[in-house]
């Protein structure tokens, strides 16, 4: 069990995406405190796994954030926080953090994303030099040292286990949508596929 390197289509080759899923995380408050304290060592995207449907759902948000990064139009301080708000179909940033990021004493399963990419030298030089040295091994060490949870393979099956559909339906406004309702209730897989399509569309269309 280690850090997974995500291969996302049409992402520049010098941008590396690493991900890991931790179950039953005990120290969510600590992790969130690091984010609020803007601790540069904790520049990760922490996502509440219960709002994720599948890997495709996750990829859509990461892709969107990477796209804004390469375009130079990030909406938040860094690409990692942009991944978290990238999950949202709405433009409300603080609401997005609350819904898709960590919530102390509520979040149990945490998905961690780390993006490593060559930063321009004009940015803060001390950070950029330490960033450059980050390897999957060093990231993994840092994560396992600070996250008290059970590392779990990041598969569609594992993600589906912890999906809170009531939340997903609410956040992505999927309650009573004709496109989903017209599918037979018996065909749960078909309904979920349709909802996944709508969730991905919602992510893609934010801001239009």
């Amino acid at each position, binding site marked *: 069990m280690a850090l997974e390197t995500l291969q996302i*289509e049409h992402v520049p080759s010098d941008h590396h995406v690493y991900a890991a899923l931790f179950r039953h995380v005990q120290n969510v408050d600590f992790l969130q405190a690091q984010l609020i304290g803007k601790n540069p060592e904790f520049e990760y995207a922490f996502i509440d796994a219960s709002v994720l449907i599948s890997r*495709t759902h996750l990829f859509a948000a990461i892709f969107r954030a990477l796209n804004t990064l390469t375009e130079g139009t990030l909406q938040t301080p860094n690409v990692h926080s942009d991944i978290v708000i990238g999950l949202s179909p709405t433009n409300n940033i603080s609401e997005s953090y609350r819904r898709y990021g960590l919530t102390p004493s509520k979040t149990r399963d945490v998905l961690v994303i780390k993006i490593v990419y060559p930063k321009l030298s004009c940015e803060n030089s001390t950070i950029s030099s330490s960033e450059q040295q980050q390897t999957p091994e060093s990231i993994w060490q840092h994560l396992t040292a600070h996250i008290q949870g059970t590392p779990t393979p990041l598969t569609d099956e594992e993600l589906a286990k912890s999906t809170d559909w009531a939340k997903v339906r609410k956040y992505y406004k999927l309650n009573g949508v*004709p496109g*989903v309702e017209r599918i037979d209730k018996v065909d749960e897989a078909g309904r979920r596929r349709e909802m996944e399509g709508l969730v991905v569309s*919602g992510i893609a269309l934010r801001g239009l």
Partner: protein
Amino acid sequence: MPFPANVPLHPSQLQTTEANGKQKFAKINNHHHNSTRNHITDSDRTFKPAQNPENTITKLMDTSPQSPPTKKRKMATDTIAAAAPAAIEDQQEHQFPLPTILTHPSATPPILITQGAEGRLYKTTFFSPNIPCALKYRPPKPYRHPILDARLTKARLAFEAKVLERCRREGVPVPAVYAQNAAAGWIAVEWIEGAPVRVKINEWLGQRPRNEEEEKEADAKEKGPLVELMKRIGAAIAGLHRTGVVHGDLTTSNMMLRPPAKSTTDQGKETNGVNGVGSEEAQEKAKLLEGDVVIIDFGLANQSQSDEDRATDLYVLERAFASTHPRAENLFEHLLESYKQTFGKKGVSVLHKLEDVRMRGRKRSMIG
């Protein structure tokens, strides 16, 4: 004419002129008739629009003597693209630079599927290597002012994306949007498996007896599946119109027939309908027309609730249908019938309006 006379123009600037459509056609032909290519470029260079545009158009047209009308050109490009995508890609790769998004690595290289008047369509994969997608790219137009160009491209793509999402939510079968960057001019949507309805209908018609007497005999029992298909198309269009969207370019090329997925409940219905047909051969034939009708290409779509616009949509389809499938023209009424049934009261008034539109053509302003 905004250009001074006697100044040689860059070929791309030509597109501002009235010759636009025809000239592009000549350019497209380049890919297939390489021998004519130099010739065209030469005549481009000597093009003096202020002096005699007509003359040059003729010249350009001359370079491709068997110029089919616009509709057929699209078909030709389609067929070739379907037959040998690799060859097309080879030729066109050099012709058009890829959009930036497609220059980033992917598991399989993008394939140029077709080229329209405003943009190009690539097949590629999105998110993961096992998710095929259609990426529509609207390149910047050199003949427009850059600021205006950026705004138009962005607005049109954004609109298309919104319409697609809206239809999807309402349960109209359209591709899902995977990602978009309207500012950069691209939108990635779900890849619909299967073939355009046009191809399927022609394939089906092609298998039927050519002899007229035999045809009449076969009609009664064999047209069943085609009638069914027409009904499904009618229902799909009614669904689209009900969400307050008019397509703007309805043709049988802009609808896909997606083969039924194995596990869906739809399949049962589909095969039940076929059982009545009889012989094995007929069943196989009928399978050709199985599947969901998925409407694609919302590049010209508009939001409208008016009967006029909806009727125009149907009229455009009717005309396109009659010219692409003359042998099945008489089946169009089934489409309208099912449209009316699905749409209810409003459908009746749309069909009523359709009568008017038929009388005068699709442009209302042409009456006076």
